[in-house]
């Protein structure tokens, strides 16, 4: 039986593309280009490396999102994942992190997994809670925020760095893992990879396939409500001086006037 690796990825609005909110306070996906979240590329990369180290492994890449989220799956397939699963349903619009974790957990149970690999956070919502939520939902160990990860003999081990310490973790499979941007550069898809990706299977699932009631997800099912969205007032232009030898001194005067010195 192969090692079944599932990689959860997110299709996010491009950070350089002027992100904003739609009228219902959800992220506007119409007016801005999307792409595979950069932090999820590290997850795909680590899944590929774990698969390379194992005798027999299969990588399924999984996403929840609208039609064009397939682009994120295609990118992961072109990097080398074997197959893809796309959960798509109109009733998912406005789902919060807790709801998304429900959909992903049901989808993971549907496809089967030994190891779930996630990025450390999405680059849009940036909550960084989804891997922990998945571990809780699936009732499996979490080995999260790893800057190094390896799998052998049914165990996942890795290194987790925090402010206070660097820790080595160990957990038995099945487990949920998340990796940081320190885990290793993600590979670029090759031309061959891009061509091969077109032939790889992409399975589509909706809420009924997963046995999820539409009341549990979407804006209706969310346990938090956004009451107001405001564009932050642009910072007013400050004083800019050219250094003519006394730039440091002038800056010190500014800091002193602001009582920082």
């Amino acid at each position, binding site marked *: 039986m192969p090692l079944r690796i599932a990689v959860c990825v997110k299709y996010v609005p491009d950070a350089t593309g002027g992100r904003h909110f739609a009228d219902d306070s959800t992220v506007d996906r119409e007016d801005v280009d999307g792409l595979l979240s950069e932090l999820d590329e590290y997850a795909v990369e680590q899944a590929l490396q774990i698969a390379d180290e194992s005798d027999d492994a299969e990588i399924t890449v999984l996403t929840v999102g609208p039609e064009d989220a397939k682009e994120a799956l295609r990118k992961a397939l072109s990097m080398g994942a074997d197959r893809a699963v796309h959960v798509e349903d109109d009733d998912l619009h406005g789902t919060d992190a807790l709801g998304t974790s429900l959909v992903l957990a049901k989808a993971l149970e549907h496809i089967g997994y030994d190891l779930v690999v996630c990025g450390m956070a999405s680059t849009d919502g940036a909550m960084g809670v989804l891997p922990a939520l998945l571990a809780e939902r699936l009732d499996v160990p*979490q080995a999260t925020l790893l800057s190094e990860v390896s799998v052998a003999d049914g165990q996942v081990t890795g290194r987790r760095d925090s402010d*206070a310490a660097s820790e080595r973790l160990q957990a038995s499979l099945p487990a949920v893992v998340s990796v940081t941007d320190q885990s290793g550069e993600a590979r670029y898809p090759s031309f061959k990879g891009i061509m091969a990706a077109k032939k790889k299977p992409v399975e589509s699932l909706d809420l009924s396939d997963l046995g999820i009631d539409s009341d549990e997800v979407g804006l209706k099912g969310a346990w938090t409500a956004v009451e107001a*969205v405001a564009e932050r007032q642009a910072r007013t232009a400050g004083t800019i001086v050219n250094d003519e030898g006394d730039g440091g001194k002038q800056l010190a005067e500014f800091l002193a006037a602001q009582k920082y010195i």
Partner: protein
Amino acid sequence: MTDILVYVDHVDGAVRKPTLELLTLARRLGEPVAVYLGAGAQAAARILGDNGAVKVLAHDAPEYTDYLVAPKVDALQAACAAVSPAAVLLPSSAEAKEIAARLALRVGAGLVTDAVDVEAGPEGPVTTQSAFAAAFTTRSRVTRDIAVITVKPNSAPVEAAPAAGTIEELAVVFSDQATGTRITSRTRRESTGRPELTEAETVVAGGRGVNGAENFRIIEALADSLGAAVGASRAAVDSGWYPHAHQIGQTGKSVSPQLYVAAGISGAIQHRAGMQTSKTIVAINKDAEAPIFDLADYGVVGDLFEVVPRLTEEIRARKA
């Protein structure tokens, strides 16, 4: 009066400043009840009481240091069962966010992470967050009876508010999940003697323009003259000039100090995501077109190798 649970973040018994800020916010919502896990509750209870904790629910067990996250979730779940709080406040550290998430699922709470403000509202706590590299501000509330909220450092002042801080033993029964992820070794980070980056009132950060690991000495010297923490942009970290733990931005730390000094940092959107909520932003860059100047309250267009040492010298002289 409604109880508000505050999760105590501490390093070997030393309570970290963001926890004291949470106590200030908790007092707006109800009566703060602190949850202290691990050894050292006696000493910590005094500080927590001085800052408004009416009660400290304490529990010590080896599980908190030997296993990742899940034992702490069990403990907070037990604390929720013990006091039926309207909200649970945690700091926005990576670990506390994971604890918050799992706790929210277990107790059926709405989850808000990275709040920068929390107020009492007619239907429960109302939180303020910033989104999309701080280009937007959102206000949220939870639609459940209980809210689990993580709050970014420097979102509230630390205010003395003497309260009893009475220690009560918390009864915790660990779940099967508690021992799922073993911590097999732990290497403490050596202290630089500088403030913790995310908690610091002042941050001095260096970027691509610093152009070498050894040059970070001038960034550190400026930081030390201001009593500041040192940060670095992703470009500087990826070049190996400064450790990743100091990276500010989308994939690193998010800071919100009173004063942020950016030296040799262009200010790409990914960097702005991590520092745009700073109160005062100062930039030093030789490229007058650098986007960081759009944010700066004061900017110096010039060579940081000239400007930064002069600035450091001036600050030292003024402080002497």
